């Protein structure tokens, strides 16, 4: 029902023009200052190696490097905005890749049909692990950290049982060709990753599903009382994260033509780093995919740039460590000043 209008001292909330409001939002949102940090880094590397860093080929390198992890970071952003946590994505990536490779091997042939079968199996594998995570977190009330740590071990263990620990390389020629193909000068994987990120960004920011994700992360009890099925929503988010890890598994398989079983132990941590760097809180309720994207690129540009300017490996570790802290500090400082000012 509608309320009638009582006398009021001021207009409510409308004292600030929409334009000014939009500007404030833009400048106050995390990604803005962090994107500044990213730009500064890129400028620094360009000055140090003008012939090598700011080249189209190198930008393509950076984009390709970030593409697989970014897909998983989109899923992680959803889960963490809702106050969850998913350590298992690296293992799920491996598991899905193994299942896809095995499927493609079983289907046989070098065309698109085994690829398609592999993709479907990879996505389903990812979803199944995601559903399992969601089930444990919501029904069994096992903390997300323990649940996803458990599935990290279990998924990797099963992948190794299936393969006896050996990488699977039954990848059809069609897929190998696809990995080399470029559209508009960029590898197909980069485009896939871009589509997922943009779709995820719009979906999280503008739809009801996205809004519910923020509410669940901000105050799960309030969400429940407002009639949101919190458990179901969380299960969906974990499933989404699993799905995207499955897709990432297929992408990784495409990129390397082999399952790289041993090489993803750090993936989850890398993704979580990018996501938190981008302004998502461990406590949930805040964060955006734009922020996540900037966060992931900070890591990636840093890794790339330090090698291009030829910093020694041990120095790189030290530099990355401190730069991460400094980047977030700059971001925090600017934002605090605004809050005060």
């Amino acid at each position, binding site marked *: 029902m509608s309320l009638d209008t009582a006398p009021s001292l001021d207009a409510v909330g409308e004292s600030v023009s929409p334009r000014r409001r939009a500007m404030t939002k833009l400048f106050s949102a995390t990604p803005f200052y962090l994107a500044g940090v990213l730009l500064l880094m890129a400028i620094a590397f360009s000055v140090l190696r003008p012939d090598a860093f700011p080249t189209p080929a190198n930008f393509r390198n950076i984009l390709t*490097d970030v593409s697989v992890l970014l897909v998983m970071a989109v899923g992680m952003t959803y889960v963490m905005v809702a106050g969850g946590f998913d350590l298992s994505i690296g293992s799920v990536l491996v598991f899905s890749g193994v299942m896809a490779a095995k499927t493609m091997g079983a289907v046989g042939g070098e065309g698109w049909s085994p690829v398609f079968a592999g993709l479907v199996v990879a996505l389903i594998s990812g979803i199944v692990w995601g559903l399992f995570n969601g089930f444990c977190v919501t029904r069994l009330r096992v903390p997300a950290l323990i649940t996803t740590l458990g599935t990290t071990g279990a998924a990797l263990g099963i992948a190794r049982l299936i393969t006896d*620990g050996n990488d699977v390389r039954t990848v059809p020629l069609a897929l190998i060709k696809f990995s080399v193909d470029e559209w508009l000068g960029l590898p197909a994987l980069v485009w896939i990753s871009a589509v997922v990120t943009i779709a995820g960004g719009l979906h999280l920011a503008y739809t009801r599903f996205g809004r519910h994700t923020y509410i669940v992360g901000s105050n799960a009890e309030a969400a429940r009382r407002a009639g949101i099925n919190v458990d179901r929503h969380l299960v969906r988010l974990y499933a989404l994260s699993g799905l995207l890890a499955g897709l990432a598994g297929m992408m990784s398989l495409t990129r390397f*033509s*082999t399952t790289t079983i041993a090489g993803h*132990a750090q993936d989850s941590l890398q993704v979580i780093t990018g996501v938190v760097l981008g302004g998502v809180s461990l406590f949930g309720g805040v964060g955006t995919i734009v922020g996540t994207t900037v966060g992931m690129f900070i890591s990636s540009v840093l890794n*790339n740039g330090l090698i291009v300017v030829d910093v020694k490996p041990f120095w790189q570790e030290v530099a990355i460590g401190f730069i991460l802290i400094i980047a977030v500090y700059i971001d925090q400082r600017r934002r605090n000043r605004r809050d005060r000012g």
Partner: protein
Amino acid sequence: DDGGSSGSKKVVYIQGMSGIPFYQTVACGATEQAKKDGVKFSYQGASEWDVAKQTQIVDAVVASKPDAIMISVTDTKAMIAPLTKAKAAGIPVIGIDDNLQDPSVMNTYIQSDSIEGGKLAGKKMGELLNGQGAVMALNNEPGTPIGDARVEGFKQGIAEFPGIKFLGVQYTQNATAKAANLASTTATSNKALNGIFGVTTNNTEGAVTGIREAGRTGQIKVVGYDTSDPIVEALKNGAADALVVQYPFGEGKQGIQAAQKIWKGESVPKKQSSPFVVATKDNLNTAEVQEYIYKMTCS
């Protein structure tokens, strides 16, 4: 440019992973040779054993336009694509340790045959045990080609001794403490165990500690692969019994030499091999063995 003088040319070595004694010694050997020949040299390596990370490094190194790349690949198939890009950019690629599955990419590779090395370890173990007993291996992670090849060779080596039973591989994620735990637990729960093969240095170090904690030092023989200062120490005081030592220092030197030959247009053999030695307490101080012991602190 002028093929003759290599004064301004640069070689970058991409390690399989940073902080590993073997790769570090390769870098030292290369540094020494490069200094002697007036070649610029640097090295890179990811902090984890990870194909994606190594790809990232290869990409960035290619972008920085060196004149040759030396690389210890993390995967013989997955690294084909990125190294093909290097080749396409006109950068010669020199393999250290291993070739790719596509033999057309590398100009040359210097192999220390891991299966061969593993075999040496297995044979030595057989000798130490007089052909009788039960042995296990401690490896980092399944699916790492070099480690798997060493274990494979080890199995072939002990196969010559029908009295020896292979109990299987346990994995330690490269953590010394995990290796120690596995060694001590197996040593106390399986009295038959009398030999452990440490596939990498951390595993050998862990095995030595674990056996000591189980109170079975001397009863359980330890054969390691690669060295580090602590392991050499263990060899001296009898906590370890034999080590298969590669010649990474020489591989590094060889790599730099190969690069210069390629620049000059001279022919290099596709495969060059690198020797091994088996170090024991008795031969440790001989000049031959000392030449092999890894020197990680480059001059």
